[in-house]
């Protein structure tokens, strides 16, 4: 049985539904991310697991025991808050030792474990510092040490990296993943940053308006998005109108005049097609015709906007030094049929 189970968890505030029947089973040692735009219910879900928000309905079990019956202070969860929430009047060592004090751990043992925790996050030299004299990244690591030292059953992280600048964020992402792996701890991270989610997680829960649209590993969610929302939230995608003519086991999908053959799956009629910019290439002939309207340089990549009969298509090509079409050129876009997702109807 899974370690942490959310069973049809819901939270309503009057008329508004913040979390809608969320079900999730997390294995021990797994790193799961709740990903979505602000207001999608991810933080509310985390707070319900932590015990600071009461669910309207549903159940949470941890290690086969009902978590909702336990008051927050006895749940044994380590929490890293978005604002770090360090105790300003205590030193780093006192901050980290706090949880152990509450557990009644003896002083000698406490000091040993605090030292270990600080070494784990690379802050051994900062034990006597006060939080206000430290940088954001350092404070974040203190918060992490403080949460980990109590040997929690689950580690909860509420957008812990959102206050850091881009470079530091990337470094911290790697460190976080390393620490989580080395300590073998089950972790639940909340973020709105899809690159962060994809880099850190074993599985991602893509949330929208309180519902989980897809729960899958990053590559599956990216390559096989379960809905247009997931497709557009994870990475960039092109959504183009198409026409499907199904015939037995095959279907012909026409986009702006060009035809692809796929396995049948979608009924004949109007449809929409989603294809990632990096899966589109420039064909010598055939394919979807268009004119390059804009080509912008992004260091490792080129981003091209191509106007076609099916609308404006975004194409991303690696800056590998090879030739690329210029603005104003006539081009033909092509992609593999399996790189394209087809959904019935005109899509959203």
């Amino acid at each position: 049985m899974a370690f942490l189970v959310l069973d049809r968890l819901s939270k309503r505030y009057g008329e508004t539904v913040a979390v809608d029947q969320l079900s999730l089973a997390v294995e021990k040692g797994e790193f799961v991310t709740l990903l979505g735009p602000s207001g999608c219910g991810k933080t509310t879900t985390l707070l319900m697991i932590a015990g600071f928000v009461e669910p309207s309905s549903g159940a949470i079990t941890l290690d086969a025991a009902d978590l909702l019956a336990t008051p927050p202070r006895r749940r044994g969860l380590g929490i890293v808050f978005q604002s770090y929430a360090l105790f300003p009047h205590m030193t780093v060592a006192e901050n980290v030792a706090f949880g152990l004090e509450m557990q009644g751990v003896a002083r000698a043992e406490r000091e040993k474990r605090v030292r270990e925790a600080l070494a784990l996050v690379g802050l051994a030299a900062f034990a006597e510092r006060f939080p206000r004299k430290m940088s954001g990244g350092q404070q974040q690591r203190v918060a992490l040490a403080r949460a980990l030292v109590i040997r929690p059953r689950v580690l909860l992280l509420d957008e812990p990296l959102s206050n850091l600048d881009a470079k530091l964020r990337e470094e911290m992402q790697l460190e976080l993943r390393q620490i989580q792996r080395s300590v073998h701890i089950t972790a639940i991270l909340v973020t709105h940053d899809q690159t962060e989610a994809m880099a850190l997680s074993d599985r991602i829960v893509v949330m929208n308006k309180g519902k989980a649209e897809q729960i899958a590993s990053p590559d599956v969610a990216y390559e096989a998005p379960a809905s247009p929302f997931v497709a557009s939230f994870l990475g960039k995608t092109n959504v183009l109108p198409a026409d499907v003519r199904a015939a037995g086991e095959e279907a012909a999908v026409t986009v702006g005049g060009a035809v692809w053959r796929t396995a049948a799956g979608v009924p004949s009629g109007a449809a929409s097609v989603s294809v990632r910019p990096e899966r589109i290439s420039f064909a010598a002939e055939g394919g979807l015709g268009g004119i390059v309207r804009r080509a912008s340089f992004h260091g490792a990549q080129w981003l091209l906007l191509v106007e076609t009969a099916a609308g404006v298509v975004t194409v991303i090509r690696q800056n590998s030094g090879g030739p690329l079409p210029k603005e104003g050129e006539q081009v033909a876009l092509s992609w593999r049929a399996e790189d394209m997702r087809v959904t019935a109807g005109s899509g959203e």
Partner: protein
Amino acid sequence: MSRNGPLALLFHALFIAFSVAPIAIVCAVAFTPEGYLSLPTRGLSLRWFRAIADNPDFVDAFWTSLWLGALSATLAIAVSVPSALALARYRFVGREALAAILQSPLMIPQVVFGIAFLRFFTETGLGGTFAGLVLGHVVIVMPFALRLVLTAATGLEREIEHAAISLGASAWRTFRRVTLPMILPGLASGWVLAFITSFDEVTMTVFIASPRTTTLPVRLFLYIQDNIDPLVAAVSAALIGLTVAAMVVLDRLYGLERLLVGEGRR
């Protein structure tokens, strides 16, 4: 922003003179070497300050005021803290009403408090007692204590308390180890402001004090009604000195502007 012209500075100088004049004159008269009301034109003397010691009435009244101030301030803070936490943290039915009620003593004339308490204490047997004084003063100074404690409580980050709870702290331990230390500066300033307000209070106290248990301002007030002499000026001057010292402490602790005017500097 434009600078102040000479006219403005003159106005300012006159205003300052106006503000300071009565206080300065009290201090000046206090140092007179003469045996009667006069300015110390012949030199300064401490005779009237020494005379205070010969007036046990004033000395007793001083200690009463001191203890009264300390007790009232402490009780007012003790009662304010839970209320401030309630107001700052929760949205509940009756929140606005509670805030208004706790600030209401400011709207009621001190005289009215005086007679209301006089009647109330007479009926309940607390008339003229120290306990009665304390109760009366606590009500009067509460709004001042509450205002400062509330500011501190509102500034608290809830997440820090959540962090403590998630680490296993009970409600009481969270309060004692985390919340209290963080609002302590606000508490201290609230205490000092409440103390000063209680110490200076005269109008209400005049009604409920008895000849045996009376405060210094009331004693001064009653004395002045009969005659004005350098003795009363010396007592006042001593008080003014203490107040100025308290003001400096308060300014260092909290900032006098912030205390009297509130936050809001751009």
